[in-house]
């Protein structure tokens, strides 16, 4: 047997696992795993209590220990009035302790981590044995939990893990996204993304809660992940409540609902998009620009791109024009490379880069004859494109008359820059 084959045996076994699909090892990074986050911690920890933080003591190397006076336990075994000692570490030394004395918290805890640093922080074995670790690498806590949050969480925990993988889970997560504070709501939105067949589990109550989450003014950052779910799954169950919600909120429909409708239906037709594009409200114009699909709306998109005062609208317009018209939107995409607003130029860069390779020659023109900002943005767009674009970048790296463009082109094709002595 060849030595290299032997050497490679273990890794080959991993590579071949799972019908040829590589399986990441335990140490492989994933942007987020099921074990991450406050919600996963609450769902999996053996101890989940509502408690008041009695004292907080710093330990070595950014560690902390706190005593929790239990008000109520979500799992059997701990009575009101009992105390629980929990420990955790902050991610960096100067970050303040996450639990503050006197604060009411929902806390999830489990065994203290076995990492050796805990022997430094808490030297005695008995002392360590009396300590629990704040679950989820310290993320397992919720400050000042509301009654609504607790209600949702308690129901979900009672339902059990198996049920949470079905309709009940989608309902629970949707509700938590709708009523939970930021960390809970964000986690809930992320966990909704773990459902491969989200539409199959989106019941009417869940759809309603989902829409509640979508229109939360206090957490606008929820919108993108939730809209992404709509676009990815197109859940039929969302249609009726969404249209009803739009009808019910006329004439002050939250613009995000129009975006949601467009995402659900593959675009907004002219009857909806045109008046929105002509609206005086920036959010409405931007929402319509994201989802417009009718012929009249496309004309308006071009107008908006040329004349709207709001960068968000112009950015959405150029993005949508490219999505719908492809290469026919090249004039708009390359024209927007000169937009004074960076976010519009960014949208134009990404838009033009999608029109590959048709955009290469128009981008050459911009790079040679456009304004400095446009020419530089053109190089950025070319850098995101394929082989033909790289041919042009190589040419610019050597022969473009502008030093700035030559430098950017060199960077784009991986050539070293700076002093080489």
């Amino acid at each position, binding site marked *: 047997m060849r030595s290299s084959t032997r050497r490679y045996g273990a890794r080959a076994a991993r590579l*071949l696992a799972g019908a040829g699909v590589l399986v990441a090892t335990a140490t492989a*990074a994933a942007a987020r795993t099921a074990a991450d986050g406050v919600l996963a911690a609450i769902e999996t920890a053996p101890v989940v209590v509502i408690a008041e933080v009695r004292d907080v003591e710093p330990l070595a190397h950014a560690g902390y220990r706190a005593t929790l006076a239990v008000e109520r336990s979500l799992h059997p075994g701990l009575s009101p009035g009992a105390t629980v000692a929990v420990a955790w570490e902050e*991610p960096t030394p100067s970050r303040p302790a996450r639990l503050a004395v006197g604060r009411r918290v929902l806390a999830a805890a489990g065994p203290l981590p076995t990492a050796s640093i805990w022997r430094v922080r808490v030297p005695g074995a008995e002392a360590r044995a009396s300590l629990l670790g704040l679950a989820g690498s310290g993320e397992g806590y919720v400050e000042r939990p509301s009654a609504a949050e607790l209600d949702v969480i308690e129901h979900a925990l009672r339902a059990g893990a198996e049920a949470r993988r079905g309709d009940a889970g989608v309902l629970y997560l949707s509700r938590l996204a709708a009523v939970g504070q930021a960390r809970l709501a964000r986690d809930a939105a992320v966990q909704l993304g773990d459902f491969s067949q989200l539409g199959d589990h989106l019941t009417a109550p869940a759809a309603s809660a989902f829409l509640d989450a979508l229109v939360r003014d206090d957490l606008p950052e929820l919108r993108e992940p939730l809209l992404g779910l709509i676009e990815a799954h197109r859940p039929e169950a969302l249609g009726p409540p969404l249209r009803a919600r739009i009808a019910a909120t006329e004439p002050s429909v939250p613009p995000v609902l129009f975006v949601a409708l467009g995402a659900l239906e593959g675009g907004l037709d002219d009857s909806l998009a045109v008046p929105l594009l002509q609206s005086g409200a920036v959010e409405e114009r931007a929402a319509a620009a994201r989802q417009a699909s009718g012929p009249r709306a496309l004309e308006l998109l071009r107008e908006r791109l040329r004349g709207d005062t709001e960068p968000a609208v112009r950015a959405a317009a150029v993005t949508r024009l490219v999505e719908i018209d492809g290469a026919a939107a090249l004039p708009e995409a390359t024209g927007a490379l000169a937009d004074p607003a960076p976010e519009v130029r960014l949208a134009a860069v990404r838009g033009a880069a999608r029109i590959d390779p048709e955009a290469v020659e128009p981008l050459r023109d911009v790079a040679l004859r456009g304004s400095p900002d446009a020419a530089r943005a053109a190089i950025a767009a070319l850098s995101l494109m394929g082989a033909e674009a790289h041919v042009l970048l190589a040419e610019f790296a050597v022969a473009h008359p502008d030093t700035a463009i030559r430098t950017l082109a060199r960077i784009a094709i991986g050539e070293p820059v700076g002093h080489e002595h």
Partner: protein
Amino acid sequence: MLPPARLLLRSAGLALLAVTTMAARCNPTPTITITSPLPLEAAASCEVELRFELVGAFTGPPDVTLNFAPLAVPLTESPPGTYRATIGVDDGLTADNILLVRAIRAGDGEPLTQGVSFAYAPRATASVIANAAEGITGPLGHSRVGDFLLESCKARFVVQKGAQRDLYSVGQYGGNLIDAELKGRPGLDNFLEMAPMVNVETVVNPQTVVIVNDGSDGNPAVVRACGPDDLLDFVNPSSLISDAGIPFPAALNDNDQPVEGCTDYTLAPEDAHVRIDTTLTNLGAESIRTMFGDWINPAGELDVVQTPNPGVGAGLNNLVGAMSFRGVGEAEGVDYSYTTTPLGADGSYVVISGVVVVLHNKSVLLALLGIEMGDLIAPGASVTFTRFLGVGDGSPSNAIDLAAEVRSTPAATIDGCVTVAGVPAPGAKVTVGSFDSGALVDLATHFTTDAAGCYAGAVPLPGGANTFGVVAGRRGTPYQGGGVTPPPTFVLFAPGAQETVDFDLPATGSVSVTVTDDAGQPLPARVSVVGFDPSPEILIAGPALPVLGGSTLGLLNDPGDSIPFGLVDFRYTGAGGNATFDVEPGSYQVFVSRGTEYSIASQPITITANQQAVVNAQIAPVLETTGFVSSDFHVHGINSADSGVSHTDRVDSYAGEGVDNIVMTDHHAHTDLDPTIAAIGLSDWVSATIGEEITTFDYGHFNGYPFTVDPTRVSGGSTDWAGAAPPGADFPSAGAFNLTPAEIHALATTSATSTPDTTVQINHIDSHFETLRIDTSLVPPQDGLNAAGRLERRLGAPVSENLFFPFPALEIWNGSSRGAQSEFLDQRIGIWFNLLNQGIETTYIADSDSHSFSNLRSAGARTWTAAAPGSDQAGTVDSGEVANMVDAGKATGGQGVFVTTALRATDGSGSTADLTRFGSTHVTDANGNVELDIRIQAPTWAPFDRVEIYANAATVPVDVSAPYLYGAVPSRVLAEGDCSPATTGDGDFDVSVVDVVPAVPGASRLEANLTVPFAGLTEDTWFVVVVKGTDGTCSPMFPVFPSNLSSASNTTLADLLDGNVGESGVMALGATNALYFDAP
């Protein structure tokens, strides 16, 4: 519930018991006893010792299976009947294992079987290095006592202790990953450092490093380094971008953010890679936006292989896929892998001044243009980013494997072996990728074969099944089939499939060259094989590469440091005077040379397969240089961020090029070559001086020598031109600025590692005068940098403070090429003359600024300085004297030409100025009448025909609107005629041929001795002489100085050997320092 393996054992064990019992009744003697591992034992180490005994008579060897597969490691038997094996981490061990030993009993042929079940739980460890022997070794092994060691079953990594500052590439702070090696492969560390990047221009400056997990719990070992952000002084991207005319985003420019960072280095027991997680916390009251990534500088003797890419070499894009830094030369057998998990669509990188900066979540272009902002971090919140650094056995495929693994990319696997005429070929290269019309267009993976000539690894298939071509090659060996290109073997790869592709390359030949001097003693020299490679490295024609002036990618090798055109290969003969190496069958011309001072020898050779051609060559010194020593004052090696040349190669090359003194001037590092010189027996042939290129990013490089080495610092004692500041406060906004040029000179000459003789020259002077906009035609010279420009360069000096400082010496000529000669004469010489014209007596220096090995830049310009008797030979060089002679201007430079001058008074006083050790460079004459004696020597292979005399010469700005670079107008020009010594009287002077060593063929030199009178001088006057060979009239100096020869007009061996007049190449050139007439 028992794991499946144990259930199997339980049932198997019952059966075994029955067999054994039955056997015992029939014949009680033969038994199998497993003494290690013990049943149900948990092996916590990385290896499991197998030991068993066969008692009694058995037929044939025992059959051993591990988890029902044949044991992958060999058994040893000692004493008879006792068998042992060491089962390693890659030999099929799982968490629960069954090991079965089966043997056939003699006589009745009955099989006996014995088994054992054992657990396997290897551990990684983290510890503090308590003694130096625990550290990682190699050319860049920098671990010290107190650093932190992470160790798995496969690899070891070192994280430097924190709270320290040592200005040295990207590693100016502690707490970073500095060393890595595979276990069992000591002495190969070629990894310098990587540092977590924060918001482009800053890094985390760890003040604390702690062991988070020592691994005793069976989980991965973890070391954590924490600290504030501080500027990475080594680089300053904002000035680079601003100088290119692009407004740099203010948010990224020297921005002191309220950020604290912690990096966890995590090593799992069976991994050869560290997972690196950096968490940044916003400690401020406002949200911030920040970029994050890494500053990476492997720096060692390493090639680059990347994907995605259309070939082998540095990426032709700026996307972060898999990055491999593969050991070459002395570093063969090690590689480093870097990859990230995809955090966003735009992760990208840029190479700045030899180091790689990776932006994890953004496009470099969009970020630099300010189109895309950093990630938002709310007050008190944190963000974490992840990447991986692996160490391997030398094959770039390790990086591709790692990236596929951590990114969960679908893949097939491939393995195979490469042989040459049936003999295993270690170090062969195998490329797998997409081919279009026979040309590689997309690299899938790339291998270096192992010691057995074999290879194995993943073939990523992100788009599903794909057909790839597989090609193999080996330096000095024909391609499979004997053609000029390697024929691809096409294979359809499907996810999960295992494919095998073997190669058998045709037999090759070799040459053995022995070089002796005029005394018949072995001589260190260069052997150059001139001709054309029958199986040339295939360069990738790729995206518009011709407009870049040549391919930067290869089919089988990274062509980054390639051999000059016209040479098939070259070697240095070292102290033994011999070089033997593979050369493919064909016809060539072997040249033996030893730089400017020696004659050359050449001989045609024909190589045939499986045969060795033998060449015995004799060369001799032909120039009279007594009283001078030659130095290359600007040399880089493996300790520089942008050079990968090993100490051995450096010493070998300079000994072979006949340079007496290597002034080793690594960026931010003090390198002592003396131990290497002694170790390879070249102490009689070359000396070394410890120097440092004090490398500011954007206002010049300042070359100090001689220095000493501070062994307590990794850098050896670098000069901290950037100025230390308290942790978290190294920002201009906190009052921390870089040193001015004058301050740098003062620090360099008074630091703890300076000597009384230390002097400082400005290197490649345009990078100083241009960047600070110093107009040397002004009296005094004056910089033109406004306040904003100064702040951009992190200089705190007010505009009223002139940044010009009269350094003792200027490196005006650096390099080995035509371009370097042109820079010297057309753009820089006038800067020097401007200073001379206003009485600032500065010494000019010619040297190589060599960073590479194969491109032969070390055979570049050099400077001879005056030396006292006893210190004017290699091996006797006095570094302090060399520096003193630089300060005194007693030096002359050249490439193929050695020219000296004397300026004689004619008033009968006997007063003379010259460049000698004990002479004076100044002369006076009561009548203002002097005579300039010019002695020109060159080997016969370096013809010259033109002498230019500059006397208080006029200078000419290259660009009148930006008067920082200057050429000059010669005061007098003398021409020889036709560049042939055979023709006399055809010009202003004649050149004679002096047969220096008649016993050695060709040991002659060209010589001209001129006397030029200057009468009626009424003012102080300086004199400089430049000697040239004229392009188109004289032959270039190929192959001694092989750069720039025209490939279009040289397509055959005969073409290469025809003198090459008018076919580009490098022409002979020499220039003196100034002699001064002082007006009475």
